[in-house]
């Protein structure tokens, strides 16, 4: 059954049933009835539906990443991931792989301090370094328990979002 991950929360959704403009869509344990009121042409796709007493407008734009959608519900932005095939009872957080893990910088900033070194053992969640950005000090935590294989940055370096920081084996 396909799964929608809306801002980190998972929802199982079923196939659309019914005849236009009246559609039924199972969401988790519930069967939701919608009436399609209007649909725009072009990009992004905007649909107005009636759900009981409410009118809901949804705009959807596809992200570079084929599974990520930029969604607006009544003008409010949401990030939605669509997982067509799999369904697991997980928390929606990305799962940790068994192989070596590359730790990337979550944002642009400056490496204020390195709190580990190559060949040292680290625990999952342990602070590896401090990244300074927008006046704040942010701890970069290890995503797994292992040994620091490589360190790509040194104190004082300026990094961008996505830059690799270190490799945990």
């Amino acid at each position: 059954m396909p799964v929608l991950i809306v801002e980190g929360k998972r929802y199982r959704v079923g196939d659309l049933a019914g005849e236009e403009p009246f559609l039924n869509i199972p969401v988790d344990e519930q069967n939701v009835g919608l009436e399609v009121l209007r649909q725009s042409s072009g990009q992004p796709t905007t649909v107005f539906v009636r759900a009981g007493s409410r009118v809901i407008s949804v705009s959807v734009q596809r992200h570079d990443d084929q599974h990520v959608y930029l969604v607006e519900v009544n003008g409010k932005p949401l990030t939605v991931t669509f997982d067509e095939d799999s369904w697991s009872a997980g928390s929606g957080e990305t799962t940790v792989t068994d192989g070596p893990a590359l730790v990337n910088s979550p944002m642009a900033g400056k490496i204020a301090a390195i709190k580990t070194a190559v060949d040292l053992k680290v625990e999952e969640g342990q602070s590896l370094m401090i990244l300074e950005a927008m006046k704040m000090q942010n701890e970069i935590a290890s995503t797994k328990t292992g040994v620091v294989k490589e360190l790509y940055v040194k104190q004082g370096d300026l990094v961008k979002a996505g830059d690799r920081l270190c490799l945990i084996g």
Partner: protein
Amino acid sequence: MFRKILIANRGEIALRIIRTCKRLKVRTVAVYSEPDLESRHVTGADEAYRIGYGPPSDSYLNIATIVKTAKKSSVEAVHPGYGFLAENADFARACEDAGLVFIGPSSKVLGNAANKFESKRFAKAAGVPVVPGANTEVQSAREAEAEARKIGFPVLLKAAFGGGGRGMRIAKTVKELEQGFETARSEANTGFGHPELYVEKYLQEPRHIEVQILAGPRGRAVHLGERECSLQRRYQKILEETPSPALDPKKRRQLISLALRVIKATHYENAGTVEFVMSKAGEFYYLETNKRIQVEHLVSEMVTGVDIVEKQLMMASEHRLDLSQDEIECIGAAMNCRINAEDPAHGFIPSSGRVEKFVSPGGPGVRVDTALYDGALVPEYYDSLIAKIAVQGLDRTEAIGRMRVALSETTVEGVKTTIPVHQAILEDRKFLQGNYHAQFMDKMLSGWKPQQKTTPEEIAAIFLTMKRTTDSAPTLNAQKTEPRSRWRSSIEEPQLGKQALFLEGL
């Protein structure tokens, strides 16, 4: 009044200053760093000059370049805004030396202020209480320990030239004091260029309350009431309000009279804020004077109607204050939410990048100060504050209600913001009672995560729309559709007969 000034700042506060200048027909010169080229303060000013790359040290902290730009563009004065060089005595002196009016206190007054010992000594001499232990530098962990034993644990280690929680450590025991000393010292040195630390009594659950002052020459000063700023996360204010829910009329008079005493004792001139902590027992202790316009000045403007930037310009250009205390009345209650580009779902990690869409709230009693627009860039180099939403109401309840509505109307797309934090605060029982303190937020936020409420109906509608997006995969033909007319003819048009149209008549 000045004919032309330079604004040595960026973003929302630069735009705030430009607004008042435009109203007063004072021409403005903006300066900008490379990534800020697209900021609204650049196109909003009458002139704009690039002063360097992104890092503040290369741009907004570059005294020589800013003063050179001011001279070249023939301005009469420089407004520093807040942050950056706003309280920098060297900058004020460089302006003065170049024949430019620094819109703020003189370099001499700033020189005294940056050093907290001196400003506290002045206050103490004028009979204003300061937090115990707060008036000598400690050179070593041992000296700190001696001081701490004198005033009693827990204590706070603080940077003499610092601010904003940097170089600050709480120590409940001697061991914690020893452990924290060197890191605090090095943080102070890295952060402020001065390693000096001092020890101060750590107050349990204090309230942080400040008084907005406008001080003319010869000790003539007026106040615009107080601001309660106890809602802080890691020593950074996040929501400010006036009046303080902790003060009765008697305590308010006492606080304001202490604040005015500090201003007089320090010969302060221009707009300034006198900061106090209030202990659980209701005692006030002077903390410091903020010698600049503050982020949260909006709430004082809303209850008094006074334009603080206008008064700053007036005091700097004409050396007089055209306002007396009996002309000022604080009406109702006001509240300011700092909207930061941070992700509260992931440890308040900064969230820089493009703001794809910004929708401003409206309606009665709402004020928005921001440089955001659709497509605005939030660079990673600067403070994460991107917007301020302030409201006023006849009382605190009305203000809170208006803030809830205003936040629900605000949309920021492309970066994450602290709006969900404010929404949680506005539903907190203790906050609603006005019963909070400076350590309140850290407790409230421990383990807190924003809750995205999405109804099954919304999930179904999202899924339906995603399906249609995928189904109608863009073809070359579809893409040629003029985006501006993508809606045309999608509306059902009835062919009714004769209609009595347009009877409204407003």
